[in-house]
């Protein structure tokens, strides 16, 4: 968000006055994204079409929304490794509930509404559980969420009998516009992604809660002495992330209408990568939602370009992604 950039920009400029390098720091993700888009356009003319841009933004919506929540958790000095499994389990439960409710409730719209409410409630509840274990249980977030990473996915696999949980056809047809529909020519997931990002930016930069999150991340003890209710803020942060995972699931389920044990595999790493590539420090304290958005889009653009071209061996796709992530992180390393 602009205000925090305005606050921070003078500092590096002061260290390296007038040099292009000084100004480059912090703009790393944006520069990386622009370079990638230029490369994409040069490699394939179809890259720069509106349809392709909307495809990329739409598929970024899942990771992007989760990354907004992840941004809060990382700024507060925490981490959540379970979001991919959590999304998969929420998707599975949501489909099971909707299939079950379809027997009992006549109106399919109400069934979908029930499903959506369940997804959001589950997300918040899982987040609450994480928050309580981390603050009241005094367990490292890395360990708590490493544990739930396994738990969530195992339960999904159990519910699915190892196969896939599939949404009833009639419901799937009714629900699919949530992913495939568009408003004013822009797909609905992109709208929701934008709303979540705006809300995230507002909460982080304009509310007391947002300032507490940043304060706890930079120095938890000082925040405690300053009478910040650290436990409450941390719990809320994990709940916020859980809610974001729930919202992402609302968009995920109508896409394929099913959840399987491979759903959401490695999403946690993509979300964390989006936040870090976007300039948020892994040790917490400072970060921005704008950067996170750029980071998330950047990650999708890389795989999009790799799919649109065939100049690199298919075995090296993951390597290209790794290289780009490291280069972008290098471009903005001055802010750590």
């Amino acid at each position, binding site marked *: 968000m602009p205000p925090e950039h305005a606050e921070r920009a003078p500092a590096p400029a002061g260290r390296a006055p007038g040099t292009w390098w000084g100004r480059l720091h912090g703009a790393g993700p944006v520069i990386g994204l622009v370079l990638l888009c230029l490369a994409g356009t040069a490699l*394939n003319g*179809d890259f720069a*079409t509106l*349809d*392709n841009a909307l*495809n990329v933004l739409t*598929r970024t919506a899942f990771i992007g929304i989760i990354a907004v929540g992840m941004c809060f958790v990382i700024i507060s000095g925490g981490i959540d490794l379970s979001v991919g499994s959590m999304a998969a389990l929420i998707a599975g439960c949501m489909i099971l509930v909707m299939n079950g409710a379809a027997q009992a409730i006549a109106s399919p719209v109400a069934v979908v509404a029930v499903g959506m409410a369940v997804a959001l409630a589950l997300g918040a509840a899982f987040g609450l559980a994480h928050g309580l274990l981390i603050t009241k249980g005094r367990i490292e977030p890395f360990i708590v969420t490493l544990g739930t990473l396994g738990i969530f996915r195992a339960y999904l*696999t159990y519910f*699915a*009998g*190892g*196969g*896939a949980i*599939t949404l009833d056809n009639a419901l799937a047809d009714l629900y699919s516009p949530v992913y*495939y529909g568009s408003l004013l020519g822009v797909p609905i997931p992109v709208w929701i992604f934008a709303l979540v990002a705006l809300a995230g930016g507002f909460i982080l930069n304009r509310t007391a809660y947002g300032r507490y999150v940043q304060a706890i991340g930079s120095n938890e003890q000082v925040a405690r002495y300053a009478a910040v209710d650290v436990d409450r803020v941390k719990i809320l942060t994990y709940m916020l992330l859980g809610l974001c995972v729930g919202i992402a699931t609302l968009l995920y389920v109508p*896409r*394929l209408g*099913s959840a*399987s*044990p*491979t*759903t959401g*595999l490695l999403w946690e790493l993509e979300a964390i990568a989006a936040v870090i590539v976007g300039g948020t420090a892994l040790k917490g304290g400072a970060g921005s939602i704008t950067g996170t958005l750029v980071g998330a889009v950047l990650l999708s653009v890389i*795989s*999009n370009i790799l*799919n*649109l071209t*065939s100049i690199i061996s*298919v*075995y090296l*796709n993951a390597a290209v992604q790794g290289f780009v992530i490291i280069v972008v992180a290098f471009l903005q390393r001055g802010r750590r």
Partner: protein
Amino acid sequence: MKNLTRRLALAAAALTLAAGAAPALAQQASQKQVVGVAIPAATHSFTAGIVYWANQAKKDLEKANPGLQVIVKTAANASEQANQLQDLVTVNKINALVIFPFESAALTKPVAQVKSKGIYVTVVDRGLTDTSAQDAYVAGDNTAFGRIPAEYIAKALGGKGNIVALRGIPTTLDNERMEAFNAVLKKHPDLKLLDAKHANWNRDDAFKVTQDYLTRFKNIDAIWAADDDMAVGVLRAIEQAKRNDIKLVFGGAGAKGMVKTLMDGSNPLIQANVSYSPKFMYDAIKLTAEARLKGQKLPATTIIPSVLITKENAKQFYFPDSPF
């Protein structure tokens, strides 16, 4: 001194062998057989099918043969499976092992250990790196899995058109299928494979890869998805892009949802499939158990054929209770 040690060691080895062989012989005489089954845990549709068919085999075979016990163990990774092998040998005292190795290289030594104790070993699907560690090998037909779709597509398009392919996770098995597919295309110079990208046997990845194919190629006649899970993502991407140039989507492995679609004729894009059913797990256990009960051996290699599934024969490949 050296000689003596060697002789002692030899004598000890001979004794162990004799001791090991004696109870095995006695058991064979009384027709008592314990078959251990080691398979990967159900983490995706296909392995869920493997687990389902292994348990099905246990149920059917134990019912038909009172002297038979089948013990099924599922493992989440290679080292867990290696531990289970030790348990099967020392605790369960198995006479025969049917194993679907989690990984080829990592399980070769542990399986060789089992065989060295006089236990009959049947390896299923993923081969070992050293075949002397097994008595028999039972597998699906990966060459046919790639060849049959290519032949079907070539025939359906009249030998002319544009194809894109979605591959699985980069593995030798995936290479084998792709090579077989390419070999058929070579015979049809007017069939063009525009690109083949990895979508990792995953619905989400297949959706993205297909979206990008559709952006990149304005004219596609057929898509080979190389797996029914990926075909689900492919179909949704085509639907979303509202493209009607694509005449054919060929999945693979005969997942129940796709076979059902085929039976109902509910999607004109889905016209055929190729079998690669996890049911070969059932066949492998059955073949091994029945041969061992009679004291016989299996042929060194048994390939469960992959065959073309069409609307006409789809019923034989539809297993509604299987998770796959």
